[in-house]
């Protein structure tokens, strides 16, 4: 039994020490990680809502909205996350929406696992820029009102349908021309 006791004790010491070290490291690194995540979020919101300097976070019907404000505190648009189904998995994106105009103000792909060099080019501004100023009432059909990337049709279609389906909900909460 002695042998087993020794085994358990050693294991226990290792785990406890490990727990301590990890807890300690977490305490140091965590603020940094949080800060980093916040920074990322802010950058993407600012990217899709040009001209804003800060934002407010609002929860409505299970969706998180980031309402962008400029220096003067004027509302400049709403950013929200949308998910589309791509070739290699879900495509996470941040969409900027201006309810007043009923138009999109920008699009940023947050994460995706599309084919590098092909579907992955939906990240590139050459693709995302086309959504800027696009009317939310557009059909969002690839090769019609959405330009696709040569050799890849599914990824852009995923983006387009992801935006469209998100917009369907969002435009009910924040109708075009309505207040927010």
């Amino acid at each position, binding site marked *: 039994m002695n042998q*087993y006791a020794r*085994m*358990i004790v050693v*294991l*226990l010491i*290792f*785990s*406890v020490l*490990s*727990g*301590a070290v*990890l*807890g*300690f490291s*977490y*305490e140091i690194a965590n603020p940094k990680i949080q800060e980093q995540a916040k920074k990322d979020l802010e950058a993407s919101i600012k990217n899709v809502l040009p001209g804003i300097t800060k934002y407010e976070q609002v929860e409505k019907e299970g969706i998180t909205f980031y309402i962008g404000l400029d220096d003067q505190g004027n509302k400049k648009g709403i950013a929200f996350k949308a998910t589309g189904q791509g070739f290699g998995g879900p495509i996470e994106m941040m969409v900027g929406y201006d309810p007043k105009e009923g138009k999109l103000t920008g699009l940023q792909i947050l994460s995706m696992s599309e084919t590098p060099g092909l579907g992955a080019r939906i990240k590139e501004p050459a693709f995302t820029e086309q959504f800027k100023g696009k009317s939310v009432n557009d059909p969002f059909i690839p090769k019609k009102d959405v330009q696709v990337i040569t050799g890849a049709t599914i990824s852009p279609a995923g983006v387009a349908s992801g935006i469209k389906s998100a917009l369907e909900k969002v435009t009910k909460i924040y109708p075009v021309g309505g207040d927010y």
Partner: protein
Amino acid sequence: MANVILVSVLSMGGLSLLLGAGLAYASKKFAVETDPRVDEINEVLPGANCGACGYPGCSGLAGAIVEGKAPVNACLVGGPAVAQKIAEIMGVSAVEDTKEKKVARVLCQGGINEAKFKADYHGVKTCRAAAMVNGGPKACPFACIGFGDCAKVCPVGAITMSENGLPVIDEEKCTGCGLCVKECPKMVISLSPERNEVHVRCRATLKGKDTRDVCKVGCIACKQCEKVCPFDAIHVVNNVAVIDYDKCRNCMLCVEKCPTKTITSLFPARKKAVINDNCIGCTICAKNCPVNAISGEVKKKHEVNQELCIGCSICAEKCPKDAIVMVREKYNKNGGSCGDCAEAK
């Protein structure tokens, strides 16, 4: 901060206690004993998995040794060094290697140049396959077929095929495992004690005339070797000369006599006895010399007539003072010249 650390320490501690205790309990409850010596022996064995020991691979032998079914020196490839290590693991003293080392020798010289071909063989290029087609392409039914099955099976790479289509065995590398002996469909390879240097390189039991018809270097059963041998070590049995390796003293008289060069020795030159200053002149050597090559007066240093000496080394064995050394001049094992190849044996 302290809170996070505390929680993590506690949960890790709890988790490990739980798992550790669980495993400890399980390992007690489900304990199954295995003998660690099996693994140890397995590590010592050469790992060639040649099967020469008769067990399926090295781990098979390791198991058998631990179970006491196989001796510690069962591995022929590993030799005494491995046997020693295994003996240590098993806690017994290494069994004294009473058997002297044997090596494989090719008992056929009928290569492409010497043997007559009776047919053009075409087909699978292995000896065994060729042997199954009309007994092989050579006219002599005892001839080496020459596709090198022995070389392929040798676990230590001691066998190479010569340009003449005969296997050449590197006796330094050969461990005497006997796999080639088993593999050869014509049974032209056999194991013989390493110290034996003279061999009849033919197994053809055909009548002398028939043998002469099929091979330039086959034994024609002329019995000249039998007559010349001073030690009664060679006899013609069933139309072919056979050496009694226990009696043969490597004197090479038969090698010199053989008209077909069927009998060969490993070395071109024979050893010669040389008497050094330890000699007290006891005359034992002179009395025992079968060719009367030693002379000298009592209590005086004796002399060996190098012309007559046949290198049988009886004198060296009989000498009470170890005053006789057998020396081979000019040649080393590989046939090149070498000035001082004194071999004490």
